[in-house]
């Protein structure tokens, strides 16, 4: 068994209590045991929100929705951190990384967001590959020519930023609304994600998740990491033609 700095803990699924989400029908208020109010969003609300944003903001609705997801996520993870810290009787961030992942997956499943999983990218350890199975928004929206899981994108960016203590961003690389099996995301330092996003958008057809990972591994980054360049070059947006992706 690998030596871990963080001692192993086991406390079960925090949310799998019979009355974790309890609604008082006389007041129409649903609360968790810690007193937090929970609202259940019907799909009609989410579609209405999307319709209204598209109508009012046009193409920039995507930025707005992602920003909302991010803002929400930064509060949500803080709250979860407090609750889990109280639950485990030790700072949540000091738990083993694998356990943190299982807890987050439990949280996603309990709230109906789908099945979350993530791993560190092997070739570029500052990046994380995340995926959500049965994600809600793509299931609601149906077909689209761009990824639609924007709230989750923002949410994941906020969660990872909080847990790692740096500004991270998230790029959705695959979406069920575009034919993929599940929503897949790349999460990494914000400036690198911005570059990758620009590169990704400039390519037709849009690169797959694996191709984005390859591009992330190939592109030069902070001088402290001595990674060698491959034959793939890094093209900046607006200045050079889109990269011919070599699979």
């Amino acid at each position, binding site marked *: 068994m*690998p030596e871990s700095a963080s*001692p192993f*803990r086991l406390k*079960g699924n925090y*949310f*799998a209590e019979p009355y974790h989400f309890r609604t008082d029908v006389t007041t129409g208020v649903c609360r968790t045991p810690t007193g937090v109010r929970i609202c259940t969003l019907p799909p009609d609300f989410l579609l209405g929100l999307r319709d209204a944003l598209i109508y009012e903001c046009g193409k920039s609705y995507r930025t707005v929705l992602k920003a909302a997801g991010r803002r929400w996520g930064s509060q949500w993870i803080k709250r979860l951190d407090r609750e889990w810290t109280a639950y485990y009787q030790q700072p949540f961030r000091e738990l083993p990384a694998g*356990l943190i992942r*299982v807890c987050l997956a439990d949280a996603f499943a309990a709230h109906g967001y789908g099945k979350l999983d993530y791993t560190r990218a092997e070739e570029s350890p500052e990046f994380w590959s995340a995926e959500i199975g049965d994600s809600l928004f793509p299931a609601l929206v149906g077909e689209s020519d761009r990824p639609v899981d924007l709230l989750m994108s923002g949410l994941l960016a906020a969660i990872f930023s909080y847990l790692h203590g740096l500004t991270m961003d998230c790029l959705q690389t695959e979406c069920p609304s575009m034919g993929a099996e599940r929503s897949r995301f790349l999460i990494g330092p914000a400036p690198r994600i911005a570059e990758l996003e620009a590169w990704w958008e400039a390519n037709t057809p849009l690169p797959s998740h694996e191709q984005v990972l390859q591009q992330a591994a190939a592109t030069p980054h902070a001088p402290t990491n001595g990674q060698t360049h491959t034959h793939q070059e890094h093209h900046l947006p607006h200045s050079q033609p889109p990269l011919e992706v070599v699979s």
Partner: protein
Amino acid sequence: MINTWLTEIIHTANERLFNDEELARMLSYYSSVPTRLKLVEELERQEPSLTRALHKELQRRYPQRTLYTRRLAQDLVESLRYVARAVLADDLRLLRYRWIDHMRAALAACDVDPQWIADAYAVLRELLQRQLTRSVWEVLDPAWSELDDSLTRGLVAATR
């Protein structure tokens, strides 16, 4: 969170009479409630001393295994509450959703050998053996076997 079999029966019956099957299930459950309650009370009573005893015993038997911290021993003893609840409701799904699924995923995610946790539960069982009566063990056994099986049959699909 899922509904237990009893909640399901009550909600689906609603405007009709219970059928024979449902009646039989409920009657057999009700006759075993006193024993189940006894188990819950006994486990609650034993909890504080079990934690100390478990930690001590694990350190004695497996001194090289740094996994067995005092906190983990306490976690494992506290897991008996979920076992107790599943036994009280006579619904193993409660144990699965609250404990087993999470445990398997956590062990895989943290690269911990499930056999080590199985060994810890085996020690716990020995400590409990002396405290609980045979009739109480009979109601506890299905849940305990479920727990054991989940650890010893290996991890299926290490991703969760």
